[in-house]
């Protein structure tokens, strides 16, 4: 410690604004240096003068307590008032967001207002979701499917959640209850992209779950086991011709109130477009060549618990899978039978299931995107969502329990405007 350092830090020393070690050094320095000690004493004098000058300790004030207590409203925070205040606060908390959400939902979707002008949203959805219950072959042209759909009067298994309701504070709970109830009534209604696919299958081979297990997903997202409901109008012989084991009874239809996949949002694609679901891709499990294993050493993408890993070789349409714990490797060969579906995104859903988003295109024309979950152990796949629209793309996927939340970007006005909608696909099983 020298005098310069001491002088520089003297103010901070007086204000007790220096580290302890520096304070000790300065004290030691003061013991040895008379000049610095004098400086310190002068600073102390200034400090004392400031305290004395500004001190108000000698002023005798009159207490204002009684005046203050007389002027305040002592009942302001009494229980009843607090309850009323909280009640209004809670009402505001609930009511304002719901009102805002409804307003946004109404104005953000130009189609919704159009539909409202011609009938209720539910009616429009019902009309637009005349989904053919039959298994439709992958090669069926989109236009043909569309025509068939328009002739059907069946109910789709998707429910639009964002309903306008006067009972604002019950919207969410009511909707959820409804969905869960419906799901319980029809647990086996899921869209299965792959079903149980044989390894040597040359054509798309989709088999109906043979044990009637209620938890097994059923192809095409339609409830096909309900024999009690007559089919109102099904005429699609062509589409069923190519299927080895037709799993859908043309004469049966799904009851209106038994949805299997519930999608919430402003305008679910299924409802809006009313297109039937197909089985566009399959994943065939095959053993993996050792040389390939060696090549892929550094490229594996591990699952969250590091029990499995995958690598997607895009140009070969091969999804390589490694069982890290058992040191086994295999590949899932992607069979894409229609147009040109290419994987746009791949990521882990849970420890043994992948999310894969396919982009469907033909030449330079984009037909939309499809989201699947794929069990890496078996190759079983489940179609979760389809955009049906070249302007809509999946930009975010998030699993929350049994539900999957999707963020869909809609490109409007020739790419000059984007809007984002959130959908929830309910009750998507983790075991496929």
């Amino acid at each position, binding site marked *: 410690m020298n005098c310069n350092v001491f002088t520089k830090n003297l103010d901070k020393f007086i*204000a007790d604004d220096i580290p302890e070690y520096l304070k000790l050094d300065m004290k030691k320095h003061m013991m040895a240096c008379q000049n610095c000690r004098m400086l310190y004493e002068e600073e102390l004098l200034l400090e004392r*003068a400031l305290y*004395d*000058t*500004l*001190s108000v300790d000698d002023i005798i*004030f009159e207490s*204002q*307590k009684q005046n203050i207590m007389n002027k*305040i409203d002592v009942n302001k925070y009494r229980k009843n008032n607090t309850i009323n205040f909280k009640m209004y606060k809670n009402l505001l908390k609930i009511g304002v967001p719901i009102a805002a959400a409804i307003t946004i939902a109404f104005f953000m979707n130009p189609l919704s207002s159009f539909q409202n002008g011609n009938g209720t949203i539910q009616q429009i959805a019902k009309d637009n979701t005349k989904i053919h219950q039959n298994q439709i072959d992958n090669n069926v042209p989109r236009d043909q499917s569309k025509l068939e759909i328009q002739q059907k009067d069946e109910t789709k298994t998707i429910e639009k959640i964002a309903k306008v309701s006067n009972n604002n504070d019950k919207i969410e709970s009511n909707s959820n209850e409804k969905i869960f109830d419906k799901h319980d009534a029809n647990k086996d209604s899921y869209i299965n992209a792959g079903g149980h696919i044989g390894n040597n299958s040359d054509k798309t081979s989709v088999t109906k779950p043979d044990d009637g297990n209620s938890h097994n997903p059923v192809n095409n997202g339609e409830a096909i086991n309900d024999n009690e409901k007559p089919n109102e109008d099904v005429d699609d012989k062509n589409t069923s011709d190519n299927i080895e084991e037709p799993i859908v009874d043309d004469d049966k239809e799904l009851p209106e109130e038994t949805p299997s996949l519930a999608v919430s949002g402003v305008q679910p694609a299924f409802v809006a477009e009313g297109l039937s679901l197909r089985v566009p891709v399959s994943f065939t499990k095959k053993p993996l060549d050792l040389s390939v294993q060696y090549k892929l050493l550094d490229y594996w993408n591990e699952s969250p618990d590091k029990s499995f890993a995958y690598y997607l070789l895009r140009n070969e349409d091969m999804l390589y899978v490694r069982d890290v714990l058992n040191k086994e490797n295999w590949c899932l060969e992607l069979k894409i039978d229609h147009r040109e579906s290419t994987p746009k995104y791949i990521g882990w859903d849970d420890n043994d299931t992948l999310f894969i988003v396919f982009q469907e295109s033909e030449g330079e024309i984009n037909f939309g995107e499809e989201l699947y979950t794929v069990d890496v152990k078996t190759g079983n796949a489940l179609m979760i969502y389809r955009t049906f629209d070249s302007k809509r793309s999946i930009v975010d996927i998030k699993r929350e329990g049994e539900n999957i939340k999707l963020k869909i970007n809609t490109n409007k006005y020739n790419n000059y405007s984007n809007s984002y909608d959130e959908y929830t696909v309910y009750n998507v099983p983790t075991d496929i």
Partner: protein
Amino acid sequence: MDHLFDKEEDLILVQETLKGNVQSFEALLDKYELIILKFIYSMIRDKETAEDITQDVFITVYNKLDTFDSRYKFSNWIMRIARNKCIDYIRKIKKSKELNIEDCISIKSRETSPEERLEYKEIRDFIVNKINSLDNVDKQIILLRYSQKATFNDISKILDISESSVKRRYYKIREQFRRQIDLYKEGCGYEL
């Protein structure tokens, strides 16, 4: 000002007041009344006015207690309210320039030699003049520091400026004081 930092006790009293327990507010009043009186007096330099403004401060505190954010210190919150009331008052009556610290300050007696006493009084007079010439924020920093014994951190919260800014201003003021006192002692009597 250490006694002001019993944050937990203050929070309990605030919560109890919000539940309708007026005695808790009285406890807060007992705890902070003199502090606020002194703080306001140090800024206004008028006893009656300080008492009136103190009333106003506590009535505001009571009426807005449900907006108090419990993440912060109650002491800083009430000091900010007091400071704002003082500023409102000064603006209102346009007396800020007329207020003179010297008129209201009585120096505590202390045992010193006549020479020391004379020198000390000169320094004190000099300080009074110097404080009166400070800008508003600097004056509040000095007042809070020496009349309320507030820490830099508390001053920063009360004045809503950063702690580093408070320290910078404080050390600058002290440096000016020291330099000018040195000049005064050398016999110039004026800053060159």
